[in-house]
């Protein structure tokens, strides 16, 4: 436990120190260069707003209308049939759509089942090993103005499915 916390605390300051020392040694005008790069960051954040507003409003409407819950209950028996625990189904389905939704659900599962239960461990593993595909897609492509996404969404969602199945199999093998 100790070492993980220590690493997390030290890693960012170490990177910063490394970059600044290397920059100084290479005679880079550090402060001016920092400001030059930072300016791009400001513009970038603003350029993402329209994409994220569009996507998040659609997803929130879908979720709050009860449609998401309906589809989850529809898919639950099917997924249960192939061995996916019923409690974990909502998390698996929400993970690619909504980051905050998934995080809330993971906390909820850990709170009700206990962090050291099978479901608690599974939820933890799943949360850590997958990402919010829709968010990544919207932010990364939105920021640089990519409109034709090609196969990106299909690839991302299939990767999520693989991550969910892998979590279930691995946690079952190790903790059961």
């Amino acid at each position, binding site marked *: *436990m100790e070492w*993980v916390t220590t690493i*997390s605390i030290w*890693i*960012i300051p170490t990177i910063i120190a490394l*970059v600044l020392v*290397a920059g100084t040694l*290479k005679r880079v005008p550090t402060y001016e*260069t920092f400001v*030059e790069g*930072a300016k791009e*960051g400001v513009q*970038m*954040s*603003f350029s*993402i*707003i329209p994409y*994220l*507003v569009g*996507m*998040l*409003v*659609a997803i929130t409407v*879908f979720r709050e*209308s*009860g449609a998401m819950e*309906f589809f989850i209950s529809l898919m639950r028996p099917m997924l249960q049939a192939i061995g996916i625990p019923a409690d974990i189904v909502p998390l698996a389905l929400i993970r*690619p759509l909504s980051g905050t939704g998934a995080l809330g659900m993971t906390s909820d599962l*850990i709170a009700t089942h*206990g*962090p*050291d239960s099978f479901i*608690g*461990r599974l939820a*933890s*593993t*799943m949360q*850590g*090993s*997958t*990402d919010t595909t829709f968010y990544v897609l919207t932010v*990364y*492509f939105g*920021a*640089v103005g990519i*409109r034709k*996404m090609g196969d*990106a*969404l299909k*690839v*991302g969602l*299939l*990767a*999520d499915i*693989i*991550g969910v199945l*892998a*979590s279930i199999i*691995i946690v079952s093998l*190790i903790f059961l």
Partner: protein
Amino acid sequence: MVNIIWVTLFVIGLVFAGINGTMDKVNEAIFQGAKEAVAICIGLISVLTFWLGLMKIAEKAGLLKGLSRLLQPIARRLFPDIPKDHPAMGYILSNMSANMFGLGNAATPMGIKAMEELKRLNGGKDEASRSMITLLAINTASITLIPTTVISIRIQYGSVSPTEIVGTTILATACSTMGAILVDRFFYYRRMRKRM
């Protein structure tokens, strides 16, 4: 594709709200969703500004080039379209390393910067190139070594061993990353065949 998904999410949601009588919640959701999106972007300003500033120094000091040279053998296989020593590679590798250590905050700016370089490589077209899709696939599979957020939630709920899921997470994430790369390759070759 995106257009259809976007409209479908709305239409299904609105029809459902009509049937279920949850229209009041939908009205709330519209503004709540918009607010949340803007809040995320505002939150991103500080992070993007700081990291892109720092990364500019790293780039000028030659650190990014060094990193990409170090990991060249793996990276070249993953992204065969990117020319040797191109700045895109440095950003891609910083993005991947930041993800591995659970530094989502630092990973996003570098991922975006990598996308920007990839777009330039692709002649500034608004179409996703092969490398862009690969980078996206790797990011959605999120290679993680230390899942910091999850560990902190587990501590919060009094886990006896909050870090016991680190091993399973690494294994699961390795599977999903490899899966993502394979799926990405599969779709790439399918596109190639279609074009012929």
